[in-house]
């Protein structure tokens, strides 16, 4: 998986590209989030528009990222999650735990 960083105001947007699965993407995502938190960038929007596939390890990693950022009093939100990934979160009854958006401007505005 590829992770591209960009910023809008003090919000870091991570554009993900590829799969978030066991051994591929899950560790990369964790490391990227931990590095951002370490340097104090704790308002993070995860753009999943180009995430093609995710398994239960990916779901677990999203949950771990959310908790890690919340423990450091930050905010973690999702952008452009596909219907299939939404379904994965929904049937596991954890979709409502995440804040998610389909519009980047609205997502960015929600941090303020």
């Amino acid at each position, binding site marked *: 998986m590829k992770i591209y960083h960009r910023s809008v105001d003090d919000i870091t947007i991570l554009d993900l590209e590829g799969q978030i699965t*066991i051994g591929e993407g899950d560790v990369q995502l964790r490391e990227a989030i931990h590095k951002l938190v370490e340097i104090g960038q704790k308002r993070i929007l995860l753009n999943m528009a180009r995430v093609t596939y995710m398994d*239960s390890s990916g779901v*677990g990693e999203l949950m771990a990222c959310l908790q890690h950022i919340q423990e450091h009093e930050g905010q973690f939100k999702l952008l452009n999650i596909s219907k*299939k990934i939404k379904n994965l979160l929904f*049937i596991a009854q954890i979709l409502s*735990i995440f804040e998610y958006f389909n519009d980047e401007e609205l997502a960015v505005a929600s941090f303020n």
Partner: protein
Amino acid sequence: MPDTSPHLPREITLVEIRFNSSLSILDMIQPITNKVCDQLGFDEDSQYWIWLATQEALNNAIKHGNKFDPNKKVLFGLQVDQGEFRIVVQDEGEGFNVQEVPDPTRKENLLKTSGRGIFYMRSFMDRVEYNTENGTKVTLVKRQKETDEEA
């Protein structure tokens, strides 16, 4: 030396692969599984969810069953029998009691960062069978769509 490793019944088995405990094999198994799904008439959405369940079973066999031990093998099979598509994944691990796996949708488990693989397998397949007599053998079952009988 005679081959004493378990084999799947020939009459219903379309594909049988035995591989080392490495996740990299999944990239080879996915197109085979999808191709068989396609030939059996499963639509694109069904293929997606069947592969997700299959991948969860393979992940568990490699990670939890064989604990990434390169000397232990995973047996993978695709079968068709009596209108059912069956995916068999068997590891050489110690086995486990599936009844003891916590339900990830219970309130106290919702925030956990792992433990959803079996739940997803059950969610996307019609039936999931376990046999832990010799390692763990998981059989994922999806009924084929009924087709109109020819006149």
